[in-house]
C-alpha cells in the first residue's frame, strides 16, 4: 500500500466522520459531497477510473443537490403554513 492510498484512506475516514458529526442537515450535505470527492480520488488512486467518474458525478454533484432541493422544499412548505 503506497503512501498516497494510505493518506486517502485516512482522509476518507476523516471526511466520513465529519458527515456523521455535522448536526445541521445542510452542513451535512456539504460534508457528504466532500466525502464523495475524497472517495472518487481514492478510486482513482486504486486504478478504477470508471468508478471514480461515477462516484464524483453521482456522489459529489447529483446526490447532494437532491438533498439540498429536498431541504429547500421542506423549508418552503413550513414557511407557507
Amino acid at each position, binding site marked *: *500500500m503506497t503512501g498516497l*492510498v494510505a493518506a486517502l484512506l485516512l482522509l476518507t475516514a476523516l471526511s466520513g466522520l465529519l458527515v456523521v458529526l455535522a448536526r445541521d442537515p445542510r452542513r451535512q450535505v456539504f460534508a457528504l459531497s466532500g466525502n464523495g470527492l475524497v472517495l472518487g480520488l481514492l478510486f482513482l488512486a*486504486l486504478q478504477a*477510473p*470508471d468508478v471514480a*467518474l*461515477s462516484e464524483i*458525478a*453521482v456522489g459529489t*454533484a*447529483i446526490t447532494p*443537490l*437532491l438533498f439540498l*432541493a*429536498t431541504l*429547500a*422544499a421542506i*423549508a*418552503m*412548505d413550513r*414557511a*407557507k403554513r
Partner: protein
Amino acid sequence: MTPRQRLVLLGLAALVLMPAVMRIALALPAFGAPEAELGQAMNALVPGLRHVTNMVAAVNFDLRGIDTLGEEGMLLCAVTGTTVLLRGARGESGRERAGHLPGRPVTPRADATVLVCRIAATLTLLFGLSVALHGMTTPGGGFQGGVIVASGLLLLYLGEGYEGWRALIPPPVLAVLEGGGAVLFVLCAGLPLLAGHPALQNLLPLGEPKDLYSGGLMVVVNAAVALSVTGSFGLLLVEFLEETREPADDPVPEDTLPEDPLPDEAER
C-alpha cells in the same frame, strides 16, 4: 428498547457474526493484490474475442449484458416511481418561477458566475459526450457519460437560475430519452432471440480494436445506456428542483385530499 438492551443485542450479534466475518476477511486476497483470476482471464481473452480495450465495458455490455439490462430496468422503475410520486403530490401544471424563503435575501447572480457556469457547463457536457462515445476504448462508458452530462445540466441551473434552466430543459425530451434508451437496449437483447440466437448475441461486425467503432453490438448497447441514464438523471433533477418552485394554488385533485383533516390542522 433501552440503550442497555441495544448494547446487549449488539454484543450477541457480534459474538455470532464475528467468527464468520473474520474467517472470510482472512481468506481474502491482500489489499491491492492484482491476482484476481477472473480479472486476469478477462484481460487475456476479451481483446481477442470482442476487439475492445475497455474490459469493464465488455463485461457490462456483453459478457453479463443481461444483468445490465436488469439494472437498466431498475433505474427506469426507480425514476418513474419518483416522478409519479412527486407529480402526484404537486399537480402537473408547469409553474416557471422559483420559490423563495421569506427572510432569506435574494442576491442576483454576478456576471462572472454566469460566465464561469456557461463555460464549465459546455465543457462538462462535451466531456460527458466524449466519455460516453469512447466507452469501448477508454474507462467510462454510457453510465458515466450520462451522469456527467446530468451534472453539466446542474451547472446550467447554477448559472441560469431556475426560470432560464426550465426554459432550456424540456422534461418530455428527457422522458423520451429515458424510455427510448431502455427500448433500444431491449431490442438489442431481443432481436437476436427472434433470429434464433441467444439474447444479446454479438452479431454486428466487431470492428478494429481501439477504434471509436469497436465491439459490435456493444456500441449500440452503450449508446442505449447513455441515452437512458442521461434522461433518467435529468428527469430526476427536474422533478426534485420543481419541488422548490413557487408554492402556489396548484389545483390538487379532490380524491387525493385526506378524508379527515389531521388532528393538529383541525385545532387551528
